[in-house]
C-alpha cells in the first residue's frame, strides 16, 4: 500500500469529511484498480453494494467477475476463494456479519490459515476476509459478536482491525497486498464515524503489525483496538479532571502483536488497562495482560487490569449498553490501579 500512498501523496488534495465506510470502499476500489487479480466476492456485495454499502459501485466499475454476488454459503464463498487464490488471484471475501462467518470456520482454520505451512511455503494464500464485527448498532441476535479471540488463536492468520478512517483505508490496502491471509475486522459501530480525510493523499499507515500511540500520557496506559478506541480516548480526556494523564495505545493488529510498542508504553507509565468488547474470559485481554506481565513485571505499579464485555452470549439490543465497556467502566478500572501505593 505504501506505493499507492506515496504516489497519491505527491498530488495536493483537500481533506474532506469521510466516513470509515467510505474509506474502506475506497481502499477496495483502489486495490482493484491497481491490481487486476484483486476480486471481491460475497453475499450482496454486487448490485446492492453490500448491506453496509462498503462495496458500493465496485460491480458497476469492475464488472460482476471482479465483484461477485455469490450464493449464500459462507464456507462455499471462502472455499472458492481458496481455489481462486491457488490460481493466482487475490480474493477479498465479505462475511457480512460476525456470527455469519462461523460456517466458514473450517475453511478458515483448516485451509486458509494452514496452506502456506502445509505446502512448505509453496502455496501462500493472499486472501482478505472482511468481517464486520462488534456491537453498538442495535443489531438483533447474531449480528454483534466479537470473534477476534478465535482468529487470534489460529496460527497462520493475521488479525487486523482499524479504529480510524485513515487506518481503515491504509490497513485494508496493506491487508489486500499481503501475501498472507488476513482476517480484517471492521468495527461496524465506527462505519459512520467521520474524519477529515483525503482519498487522493491518504496517510501513511505502514506495514501490518505496528501499534500506534493515539494519546501520550504518564500515569497509565489504556491498550485497546477497533470499536473501543473512541471509548478509551474519551475516558482519557475525562480522566484529566481526576488528575490522571492516560496514554492510549491502539493495537491496530492483534496478530502480529506489537509487543515493543505496548511494552515501551507500559514501562513508561507503570500501569495498564486492556479494553475490548469481546468477552473477557479467554479473550484477547488475558493474552495481552500476560505478555505485559512477562515483559514489564518490574516496571508495574499495579496488576494489569481488563475491561471487557461480560462472559455472556451477546445480549439483546435493548440491554447491550449494559454489556459494552463504556467510559465509566474504563475510569473505574483506572481508579483501581493502586494509586495510593504511589504516595
Amino acid at each position: 500500500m505504501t506505493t499507492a500512498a506515496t504516489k497519491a501523496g505527491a498530488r495536493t488534495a483537500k481533506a474532506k469529511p469521510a466516513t470509515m465506510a467510505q474509506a474502506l470502499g475506497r481502499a477496495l476500489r483502489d486495490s482493484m484498480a491497481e491490481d487486476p487479480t484483486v476480486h471481491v466476492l460475497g453475499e450482496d456485495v454486487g448490485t446492492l453494494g453490500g448491506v453496509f454499502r462498503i462495496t458500493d459501485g465496485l460491480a458497476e466499475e469492475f464488472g460482476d467477475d471482479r465483484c461477485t454476488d455469490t450464493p449464500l454459503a459462507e464456507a462455499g464463498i471462502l472455499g472458492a476463494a481458496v481455489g481462486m487464490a491457488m490460481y493466482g488471484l487475490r480474493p477479498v471475501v465479505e462475511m457480512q456479519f460476525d456470527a455469519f462467518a462461523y460456517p466458514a470456520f473450517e475453511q478458515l482454520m483448516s485451509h486458509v490459515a494452514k496452506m502456506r505451512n502445509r505446502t512448505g511455503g509453496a502455496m501462500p494464500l493472499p486472501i482478505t476476509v472482511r468481517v464486520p464485527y462488534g456491537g453498538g448498532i442495535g443489531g438483533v441476535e447474531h449480528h454483534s459478536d466479537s470473534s477476534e479471540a478465535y482468529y487470534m488463536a489460529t496460527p497462520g492468520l493475521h488479525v487486523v482491525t482499524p479504529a480510524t478512517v485513515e487506518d481503515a483505508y491504509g490497513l485494508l490496502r496493506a491487508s489486500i497486498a499481503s501475501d498472507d491471509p488476513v482476517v480484517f475486522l471492521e468495527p461496524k459501530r465506527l462505519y459512520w464515524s467521520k474524519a477529515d480525510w483525503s482519498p487522493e493523499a491518504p496517510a501513511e499507515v505502514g506495514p501490518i503489525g505496528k501499534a500506534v500511540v493515539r494519546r501520550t500520557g504518564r500515569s497509565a496506559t489504556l491498550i485497546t483496538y477497533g470499536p473501543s478506541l473512541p471509548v478509551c480516548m474519551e475516558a482519557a480526556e475525562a480522566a484529566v479532571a481526576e488528575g490522571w494523564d492516560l496514554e492510549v495505545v491502539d493495537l491496530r493488529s492483534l496478530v502480529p502483536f506489537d509487543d515493543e510498542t505496548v511494552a515501551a508504553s507500559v514501562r513508561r507509565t507503570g500501569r495498564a488497562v486492556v479494553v475490548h468488547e469481546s468477552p473477557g474470559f479467554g479473550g484477547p485481554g488475558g493474552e495481552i495482560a500476560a505478555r505485559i506481565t512477562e515483559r514489564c513485571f518490574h516496571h508495574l505499579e499495579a496488576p494489569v487490569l481488563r475491561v471487557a464485555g461480560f462472559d455472556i452470549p451477546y445480549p439483546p439490543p435493548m440491554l447491550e449498553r449494559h454489556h459494552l465497556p463504556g467510559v465509566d467502566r474504563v475510569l473505574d478500572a483506572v481508579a483501581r490501579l493502586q494509586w495510593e501505593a504511589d504516595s
Partner: protein
Amino acid sequence: MTVQELPGAATYRPTPPPAWKPITDPAPLLPDPEPYRVLGTDAIADADPELLLRLHAELVRGRRYNTQATALTKQGRLAVYPSSTGQEACEIAAALVLEERDWLFPSYRDTLAAVARGLDPVEALTLLRGDRHTGYDPREHRIAPLCTPLATQLPHAVGLAHAARLKGDDVVALAMVGDGGTSEGDFHEALNFAAVWKAPVVFLVQNNGFAISVPLAKQTAAPSLAHKAVGYGMPGRLVDGNDAPAVHQVLSEAVARARRGGGPTLIEAVTYRMEAHTNADDATRYRVDSEVEAWRAHDPVQLLERELTGRGLLDDEGIAQAKEAAERMAAALRDRMNADPELAPMDLFTHVYAEQTSQLREQAAALRAELDAEQDHEHSAEEGR
C-alpha cells in the same frame, strides 16, 4: 532404476474427445438407474486399444503401489495408509483423463491418483509418513494437497476452475470425494457454486460402500449419490467404478464438456474398498466376508485383464511385463522409503507467515537454544566416554 524414471500418467494424452460414444450436450440431469459399463458390452469394441493397455499397466502398477504402501505401515515406515485397493480403476482413470494444465483435487485416499498423474511416489507419501504435510509443490504438478478434512477441497476446485475460466484458460478441475464426504456441507456448497458459476469442474464420488464403518444406507436416502446432481442443475452419472474404461469414458465426457464451457458434472463411481479404512481399522466389525468375496470376483484389475486377454490384446507375456514394471516401482519405493527423512526442527517456524512475527522469532530462538544445549550435552557425553 529410480521411481521417478518410470513414466507417469502425465505423459499419456488420450485423443480427445473419446470416439466411441457421442457426447450428449447438454447432458440429461438424471443419471441412468444402472451404472454405466463398458467391459463385457459392445462398447468395448470401439475403445482405443492403446488406452486399454495403458489402463491395464497402470492398474497393475497401482495395485502394487497399494500393497507396497500397506506393507510400509507394517514396517513402521508409514504412520498410516488408507489403501485404495479395489478402487484402482477410479484412481487411474482420474489421473489419465486430465491434461497437463488441468488440476486434480484428491482426498486422503487418492495418493494413487496423484502418483499415476506423475507425482514422485515418495513425495506423495510424506503426509502419511509424517515428515511433511505436502511433499510437493501443488502448482508444479497441478495437484492440490491431499485433503484430510472431508469434502473441504471441493470448493477449492470450484474456485480454481472459476479463476482459470476468468483468466481465459481452458483448465478443468477434477475433485475426488468419497461417499461419506457427500454428506458434508462443503460438498453441497461446492456443487451449488459450480453449477451457478458453470465452473469447469468434474466431481468424482468414489462410492466404496462405507464411510469408515457406516454403510451407504445410513449415509443417504437418495436413490444414488449421482441423483444429488439434479437439485443443483448439473448432470449426474452413475458408472461401474471397477470398470476402468467405463470410468475413463464417463470422466472424459465430463471433462470435455467442462472444457467447452458446459459446466460441472457429478459422477458416482460404484466401487468397493477391499481393505479396511486404514491399517488402524478393523473392517470385520462392520462387514461380512461374503460381501468382500463377492466384490473380489469383480476386481478391477482382473476384469480388465480378462477382457483384454479374451480379445487378444494382451497375452501372458504382456501381463508379466506389466507385473515386472510394477515390481520395479515397488522395489524402488521400498528402498527410498527405507531411508530416514532428514528433518530440520527450525523449519517449524519457516512457513507460518511470509515474514516471521516477533512472537515466532522469539520462539525460534528458544528452540534454537534448546537444540544447541542438546548438542552440547551430546558432545560432552561423547568426550566423557
